[in-house]
C-alpha cells in the first residue's frame, strides 16, 4: 500500500469532523437482521486481515473465496427449481417441462402426508394430499415420478427429512428398475432432522433414533452410492422461521458439526462421509449481509473440519451449498415486485459463490406457482448467468473493506453462539432446552414489530401501498379429485402386491431397527416389495417412539 496506517487514520479523522455537520435521514441503518452497520469502511476495518490465512485462493483452504479453483468459469451454478404437486404423473410432466426449458437438475417437493410419513389414505392426510408437493406412497409412485427421465443423467434433490431413508431407498429402487447402477446416481436428500426440531418442525421420531437413521445412511452411501449428498444441512428453514442471518449461519453450522460428531461416534472415518455433506442457505433481501454470511460459512467450516475434526480430504473441508431466495421476504401485496426482490437475492447468492440456486416465483406467497411464474424465476437466473457478466470474475467482492469486515463480524458472532451451544451441552441438549426455538421466536417477533411500526419498510405492505389492490394473478389450484385418485391408487396397490413378501421384509426390518444393524438394506427390501411409506414409518414409530415438542411462543 502506498499510504501508511497513519495517513489513513488522519484522513479518516478529518472526514469524521466534516461529516458530523451533515444530517442523516431519519432511518435505522442496520441490516435486515438488526445488525448495525457503519456508514463507511476503510482499510482500518480490515487491518488484521491475513490474505493467505483468512482468504486464500479459490479452491484452496480456507475456501473463503469459493470451493472451485475456477468457480463459474468452469461450470455455472446448477439452476434447480423446486417443484412438485398433485400426483406423480403430473409432477413428472412438470419435470419434463422444466428440463426442456434448460433446467439442469430436479428438485422434488413432497406433500405434507409424505413428509410426515402418512399414506394418502390415512385419516391425517385428509385434505392435504398433493397440495404442497407430490404424494408418494410407494415405489410405484416413484417409478411414475421419474418415468422417461434417465436417473443416470439428471441429479435429483429431494426435500425430505424424517422419512428420508425410505424415500431415498425408493429412489434407488426406481433407478434399479431403469437399470441404473447405484454408483451412478447423483443427487441430494435433505435428511436434516436437527433443523426440523429447531425450525421446520416436520419431525416424526425422537432425536436419537433419528440420528441413527442418518448415520446408517452415511455408512450405506459411502460404500454403495458414493456420489450422493447424504444430508443437506439447512439454514433455509431456520431463516424462514424468523432467525437473523447470524443465527441461520451459526445454528446450521452447529447442526453440521453435530452430524460430523454423530458419524465419528458411529465409528465412521470423518473423510468417508464428510465430503458428501452439503449445505442449504437462504438468500434474504439484505444484500451484503448475505454475501458475508456465505463467505464466513465456508471459512468457519474449513477451519473446524481441519482443526477440530481432523479432516484430511480437502472435500471434507469444503462447504458446498445450495441457495434458495427468501420466501419470507416476498409479499402477497403487489406480487410482481417479488420478481425484483428475487433477482437481488439471486445476485447475492451468486456473489457468495453458491453451487446451485432456486429462485422463488412471484406467486409462491399465495399458492403453488404457475408455469409462467416459474419460467420468469428461471429466466432471472439465466439473465444473471449469461447477460450480467457477474460470473466472469471469482469472488469479486473480496477485498471490499465492508464485505471483509462484515465477513469477520459474522464469524465472531458465530463463535459466541458456538460457545453458548457448547455451554448448554451441545445441539441436542440445546434443542431439548428450546434454546434455538426461543432465539428464533424472539427474532421473528422483533422483526414483525419493526415492520408494524414502520421502522422497517416493506414496499407495498406498509409503505407505497396500492389502495384497493385486487389479486389479479392466476392461482394454481389442485383438483380435489387428485386426493381421491391417489387414495384409490395406494389401496389398489395394497390389494394387488405380494403381501407375504411385504410381511417378510417388514419383519426383517423390525429386527434390524430393534438392533444395531444398518437398516438401509432392509428398507430397500421393503420398498422393492412395494411396502408403503406409511407402513414403514409406522413400524419405526413402534420401535423408536414419537417426538413431542413443548409449544412455546
Amino acid at each position, binding site marked *: 500500500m502506498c499510504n501508511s496506517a497513519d495517513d489513513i487514520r488522519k484522513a479518516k479523522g478529518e472526514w469524521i469532523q466534516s461529516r458530523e455537520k451533515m444530517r442523516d435521514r431519519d432511518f435505522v441503518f442496520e441490516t435486515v437482521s438488526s445488525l448495525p452497520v457503519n456508514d463507511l469502511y476503510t482499510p482500518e476495518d480490515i487491518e488484521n486481515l491475513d490474505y493467505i490465512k483468512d482468504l486464500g485462493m479459490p479452491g484452496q483452504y480456507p475456501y473463503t473465496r469459493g470451493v472451485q479453483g475456477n468457480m463459474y468459469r468452469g461450470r455455472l451454478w446448477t439452476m434447480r427449481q423446486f417443484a412438485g404437486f398433485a400426483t406423480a404423473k403430473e409432477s413428472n410432466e412438470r419435470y419434463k417441462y422444466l428440463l426442456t426449458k434448460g433446467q439442469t437438475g430436479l428438485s422434488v417437493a413432497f406433500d405434507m402426508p409424505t413428509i410426515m410419513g402418512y399414506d394418502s389414505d390415512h385419516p*391425517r392426510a385428509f385434505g392435504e394430499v398433493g397440495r*404442497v408437493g407430490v404424494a408418494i406412497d410407494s415405489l410405484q409412485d416413484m417409478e411414475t415420478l421419474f418415468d422417461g427421465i434417465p436417473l443416470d443423467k439428471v441429479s435429483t434433490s429431494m426435500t425430505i427429512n424424517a422419512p428420508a431413508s425410505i424415500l431415498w431407498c425408493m429412489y434407488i429402487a426406481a433407478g434399479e428398475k431403469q437399470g441404473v447402477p447405484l454408483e451412478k446416481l447423483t443427487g441430494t436428500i435433505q435428511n436434516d432432522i436437527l433443523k426440523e426440531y429447531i425450525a421446520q418442525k416436520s419431525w416424526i421420531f425422537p432425536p436419537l433414533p433419528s440420528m441413527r437413521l442418518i448415520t446408517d445412511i452415511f455408512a450405506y452411501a459411502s460404500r454403495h452410492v458414493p456420489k450422493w449428498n447424504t444430508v443437506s444441512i439447512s439454514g433455509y428453514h431456520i431463516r424462514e422461521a424468523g432467525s437473523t442471518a447470524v443465527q441461520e449461519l451459526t445454528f446450521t453450522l452447529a447442526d453440521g458439526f453435530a452430524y460430523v460428531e454423530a458419524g465419528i461416534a458411529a465409528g465412521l472415518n470423518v473423510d468417508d462421509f464428510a465430503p458428501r455433506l452439503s449445505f442449504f442457505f437462504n438468500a434474504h433481501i439484505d444484500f451484503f449481509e448475505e454475501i458475508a454470511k456465505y463467505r464466513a460459512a465456508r471459512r468457519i467450516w474449513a477451519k473446524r473440519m481441519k482443526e477440530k475434526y481432523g479432516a484430511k480430504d480437502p472435500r471434507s473441508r469444503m462447504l458446498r451449498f445450495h441457495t434458495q431466495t427468501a420466501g419470507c421476504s416476498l409479499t402477497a401485496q403487489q406480487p410482481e415486485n417479488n420478481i425484483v426482490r428475487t433477482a437481488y437475492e439471486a445476485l447475492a447468492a451468486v456473489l457468495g459463490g453458491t453451487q446451485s440456486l432456486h429462485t422463488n416465483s412471484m406467486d409462491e406467497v399465495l399458492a403453488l406457482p404457475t408455469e409462467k411464474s416459474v419460467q420468469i424465476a428461471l429466466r432471472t437466473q439465466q439473465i444473471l448467468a449469461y447477460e450480467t457478466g457477474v460470473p466472469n470474475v471469482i469472488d469479486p467482492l473480496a477485498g471490499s473493506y465492508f464485505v471483509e469486515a462484515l465477513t469477520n463480524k459474522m464469524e465472531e458472532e458465530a463463535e459466541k453462539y458456538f460457545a453458548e451451544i457448547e455451554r448448554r451441552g451441545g445441539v441436542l441438549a440445546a434443542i431439548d432446552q428450546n434454546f434455538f426455538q426461543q432465539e428464533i421466536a424472539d427474532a421473528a417477533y422483533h422483526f414483525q414489530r419493526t415492520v408494524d411500526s414502520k421502522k422497517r419498510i416493506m414496499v407495498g405492505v406498509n409503505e407505497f401501498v396500492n389502495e384497493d389492490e385486487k389479486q389479479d394473478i392466476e392461482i394454481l389450484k389442485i383438483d380435489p379429485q387428485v386426493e381421491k385418485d391417489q387414495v384409490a391408487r395406494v389401496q389398489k396397490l395394497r390389494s394387488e402386491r405380494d403381501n407375504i413378501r411385504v410381511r417378510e421384509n417388514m419383519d426383517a426390518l423390525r429386527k434390524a431397527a430393534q438392533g444395531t444393524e444398518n437398516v438401509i438394506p432392509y428398507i430397500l427390501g421393503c420398498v422393492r416389495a412395494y411396502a408403503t411409506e406409511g407402513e414403514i414409518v409406522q413400524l419405526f414409530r413402534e420401535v423408536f417412539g414419537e417426538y413431542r415438542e413443548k*409449544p412455546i*411462543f
Partner: protein
Amino acid sequence: MARKIRVLVAKPGLDGHDRGARVIARGLRDAGMEVVYTGLHQTPEQIVEAAIQEDVDVVGLSILSGAHLTLFPRVYDLLRENNAEDIMIIGGGTVPDDDIVTLKANGWAKEIFTPGATLDSIVEWINTNVKIN
C-alpha cells in the same frame, strides 16, 4: 373490570409453519389477552376439545398448507356438534381472495388475515368484534 379476552391460537394440519402462529400468539398476549397456543399438527377434534376446555372466546386457525377449505368447515361443524357455536373462528395464512369470500360467506370464518396484516390491526379487530361479558 372486564375480564380478558381468551384466545386459542391453533395450528391444524401437518405442516410446521408456526412462525405466524407464534408471532400472533405473542402479540395478542402483549396486547393483554389470555392466549393458549396448541402447538403443531393438531386435528380439528383436538382443537375443538382444547377450545372448550380452555373456555376461549375465539379460535384463531393458522393455515399455510392450502387445506383451509377442509379445515375451517370441520372446526366449525365440530364446535356446533359440541354446543360451542358461541366460540368465534378467525384465521390467518396464505388464503387466496376467492377462498376468503367462500369461508366468510358460509360462516366458517368470521375474518381471515393474510400476510401483511399488522399485529395491531388484528388486536383491534378482535377487541372490536369479540364480545365478552
